[in-house]
């Protein structure tokens, strides 16, 4: 990345003459003044010479910066700071007084609209003229002629003299010629302010394309949103000096510090002078987006906190802090007050110092400048509350969009209207879901809870109950009073949740056998006589499947077949939930989540075995179970984490093991993204699904994704870092040895479960990690793990109003 423009100690001086009346020097005056001075000296030898006052004006003083190829630099400053002079020097129109500028590449500069346009010539002729002046050869212009004309949208007026054009057409034509110049460096000086929004949008797109092609762009503007939309670097000039050179976000922040001057994002009053009365005084008010961060320019995606700090001087009154939010057009965007806080509304205050905060959600306000009118009142009468504090223009802040995605604007670069800019939920067509499913949208579906009576006394057959997920599910079912029968091999690891949490204790039966043993499975199922079946028994590890592919297929595919065979020869089974995996999908390494109807696949033996299991499920459902009135659904979940997992080659268990042993964890693929969730999340989904299958049958007999919230699909690295934050004794490094293939991106789209099952993830990833650590910590301290696990299950229930 060589520097394309290098400016070293550039200075430009102009001399201002104060005595002169004429605009320019004439020979006549020089001679006349010369004679006058000589004569003056002769006649009045002692009198002081009144010389014309010469004042030196440094338009630029020692400005130095480097611009690399492909940079899009925005130059922001107040009027008169030297922007246009800088551009003139860069365009080689004028020479610097000192310092040097070196430029590599063809420069096209648009310093003024229609430079080189002759008013009498027609548009067509002016294109050639302007193009020639800007440095294009006639052949080039001819080639680009049609493109230029269509970009400028002046086809109709090509043959009228340019003096008849409107200023908008003028700009469009001028910009069109310059844009098709294919320069290596493009310099634009505020000329786009003349065009309308549609044209400006086109220009930005074009300039954005330039950036993509490695063209260096220099833009001068006062308009912050223009600069942030277009540029990746910002330079600020102040009175001819370089004030700031850095990323565009920092530059914009710095500029607003300079430019807004009196409106800041915080205001503090000395107590005697603080606004208010004998009841309450407002001591300070502050706006911030990220805690402890200065600056008054906030990211549009982030929430903004307004913090009031006030002293209540008189006890016994209800005090209500509130504010009006004004935008730059002096429109009140909204008002909000403390009466929305359920804890304090209507509560009488004791005297003392209070801090009240209001959080304006991210992705709600539009880009622009805002100011806050602070109010503190007592709502003794809704119609006319007693106002103690009412201060206008206390603090101000700006909202901008860094165009990284995640905002309502998305990729759109042009003008985006609206007083607010929320991201709303859209549902594009229900055709995706079966017609049967639509009927169920009116029924209310309840979360599985310990007070839920559905599972009470139900006979549940659970395969894989000795495993990690199976253990948790079994305990949950037990806590709801179900009669749980289990069928699985011995626990897979020496230390395991089955023994540690005494899962066995509350179960009706626990058969230890192989799922591949069709006979034994069928027998165990017959003796249990269940109404609901959860099939979780599997070989769950990707790496193990590379070592033992045949066994993986036998267990995961034939095991499933055996289960279904057993089911279809029985009576009394109403609902079957086959737990497969999120890896059953054909992984295209997309960034978006997979939907249930996408293709099955799987790169490695484990994943493809789960894909096969899905195919088996679908076939058995259609061929045998649907006709028999048995509702069969499959459930796909992401990477579950939680206390009690000691499997090899899983991130959290590995991490905890390393932590306990004091070793450094070797992280396999730190950048791989997976849908992490606490084990209770998909389990709650399975339980809800089972309940619906039981009561509503076939309409729920489909595949379901139970994945985490989109934001919780994080790279492995993120998880490790969060764990490291919470437990200081985590050490980790990347494993450089070649690894068998593991997918990089894997996300689930769980909108179907959200919509039709009313299933929502309840514990965000941070909470999941925390709970896992708590469980692990309790285990290390030899606590009653059964009680701990049941407690965590109980804590998960929605009635306790958890996170």
């Amino acid at each position: 990345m060589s520097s394309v423009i290098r400016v070293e100690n550039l200075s430009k001086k102009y001399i201002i003459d104060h005595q002169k009346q004429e605009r320019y020097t004439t020979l006549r005056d020089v001679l006349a003044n010369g004679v006058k001075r000589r004569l003056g000296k002769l006649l009045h030898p002692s009198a002081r010479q009144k010389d014309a006052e010469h004042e030196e004006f440094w338009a630029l003083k020692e400005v130095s910066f480097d611009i690399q190829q492909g940079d899009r630099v925005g130059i922001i400053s107040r009027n008169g700071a030297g922007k246009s002079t800088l551009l003139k020097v860069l365009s080689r129109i004028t020479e610097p007084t000192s310092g040097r500028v070196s430029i590599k590449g063809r420069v096209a500069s648009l310093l003024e609209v229609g430079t080189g346009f002759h008013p009498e010539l027609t548009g067509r002729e002016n294109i050639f003229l302007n193009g020639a002046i800007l440095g294009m050869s006639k052949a080039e212009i001819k080639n680009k002629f049609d493109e230029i004309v269509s970009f400028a949208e002046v086809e109709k007026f090509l043959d009228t003299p340019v003096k008849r054009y409107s200023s908008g057409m003028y700009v469009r034509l001028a910009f069109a010629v310059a844009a098709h110049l294919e320069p290596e460096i493009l310099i634009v000086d505020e000329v786009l302010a003349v065009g309308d929004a549609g044209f400006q949008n086109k220009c930005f797109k074009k300039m954005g394309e330039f950036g993509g092609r490695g063209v260096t762009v220099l833009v001068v503007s006062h308009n912050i949103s223009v600069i942030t939309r277009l540029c990746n670097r910002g330079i600020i000039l102040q009175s001819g000096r370089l004030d700031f050179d850095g990323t565009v976000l920092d530059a914009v922040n710095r500029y607003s510090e300079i430019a807004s001057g009196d409106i800041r994002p915080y205001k503090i009053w000395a107590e005697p002078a603080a606004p208010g009365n004998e009841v309450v005084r407002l001591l300070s008010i502050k706006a911030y987006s990220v805690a402890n961060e200065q600056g008054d320019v906030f990211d549009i995606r982030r929430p903004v906190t307004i913090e009031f700090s006030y002293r209540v001087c008189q006890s016994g009154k209800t005090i209500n802090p509130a504010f009006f939010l004004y935008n730059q057009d002096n429109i009140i965007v909204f008002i909000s007050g403390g009466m929305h806080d359920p804890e304090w509304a209507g509560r009488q205050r004791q005297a003392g110092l209070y801090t009240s905060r209001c959080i304006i959600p991210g992705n709600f306000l539009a880009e622009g400048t805002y100011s806050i009118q602070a109010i503190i009142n007592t709502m003794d009468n809704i119609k006319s509350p007693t106002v103690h504090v009412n201060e206008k223009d206390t603090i101000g802040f700006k909202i901008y969009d860094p165009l990284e995605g995640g905002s309502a604007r998305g990729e759109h670069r042009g003008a985006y209207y609206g007083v607010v800019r929320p991201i709303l939920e859209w549902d594009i067509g229900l055709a995706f879901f079966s017609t049967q499913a639509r009927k169920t949208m009116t029924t209310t579906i309840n979360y599985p809870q310990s007070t839920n009576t559905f599972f009470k006394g139900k006979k549940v057959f659970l395969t894989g109950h000795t495993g990690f997920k199976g253990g948790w599910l079994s305990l949950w079912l037990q806590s709801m009073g179900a009669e749980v029968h289990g069928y699985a091999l011995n626990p897979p690891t020496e230390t395991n949740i089955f023994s540690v949490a005494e899962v066995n204790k509350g179960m009706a039966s626990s058969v230890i056998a192989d799922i591949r043993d069709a006979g034994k499975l069928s027998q165990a199922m017959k003796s249990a006589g269940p109404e609901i079946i959860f099939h979780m028994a599997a070989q769950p590890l990707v790496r193990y499947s590379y070592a033992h592919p045949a066994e993986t297929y036998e267990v995961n595919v034939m095991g499933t077949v055996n289960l279904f065979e057993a089911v279809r020869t029985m009576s009394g089974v109403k609902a079957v939930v086959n737990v497969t995996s999120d890896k059953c999908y054909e992984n295209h390494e997309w960034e978006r989540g997979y939907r249930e109807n996408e293709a099955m696949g799987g790169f490695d033996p484990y994943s493809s075995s789960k894909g096969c299991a899905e195919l088996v499920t679908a076939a058995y459902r259609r061929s045998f179970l649907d006709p028999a009135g048995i509702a069969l659904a499959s459930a796909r979940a992401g990477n579950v984490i939680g206390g009690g997992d000691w499997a090899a080659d899983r991130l959290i268990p590995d991490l905890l093991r390393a932590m306990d042993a004091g070793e450094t964890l070797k992280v396999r693929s730190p950048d791989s993204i997976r849908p992490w969730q606490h084990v209770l999340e998909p389990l709650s989904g399975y339980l809800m699904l089972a309940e619906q299958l039981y009561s509503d049958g076939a309409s729920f007999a489909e595949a379901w994704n139970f994945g985490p919230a989109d934001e919780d699909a994080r790279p492995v690295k993120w998880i490790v870092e969060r764990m490291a934050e919470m437990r200081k004794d985590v050490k980790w490094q990347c494993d450089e040895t070649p690894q068998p293939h593991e997918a990089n991106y894997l996300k689930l789209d769980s909108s179907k479960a959200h919509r039709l099952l009313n299933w929502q993830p309840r514990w965000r990833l941070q909470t999941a990690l925390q709970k896992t650590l708590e469980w692990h910590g309790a285990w290390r301290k030899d606590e009653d793990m059964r009680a701990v696990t049941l407690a965590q299950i109980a804590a998960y229930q929605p009635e306790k109003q958890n996170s």
Partner: protein
Amino acid sequence: MISKVYFPRLVVPASAVIVSFVDFLISGVILVGLMVWYGFAPNLRMLALPIFIFVAFAAAMGAGLWIAALNVKYRDFRIVVPFVVQFGLYISPVGFSSNIVPEQWRLLYSLNPMVGVIDGFRWAILGGDTRLYWPGFLLSVSLVLVILITGIIYFRTTEKTFADVI
């Protein structure tokens, strides 16, 4: 436009001279017409014509550069130009022949650059017994070259400040 777009400023005076050159060629056509009408046959000395044309070009260019550069600094310079040209018309051998200038003034008279040019043209086209006063001619030509070279230097030096002054 000087203050808005980058282009070599030399283009401006050069374009004026080149445009006049085209005018000159058109006059040349008229001359050819006259020669045909009067049945005047040119002799071998005609081949020297391009040299004299080049000298004329250089004279115009040199003078033009100086005046253009000075005009930027002192705006009233352009007013002086018609007077200088008018005066020059009288001391150049336009309406008379160089032969009538007495010997002792000949050298001084040849300080006028156009003397060399016009005498040279006459010598080349008319042929016959028109003689060229060689010392005077060489003086004229060297003066033309001096004006041209210094003109270019001065113009290039001051061109940096044009955008600031205009």
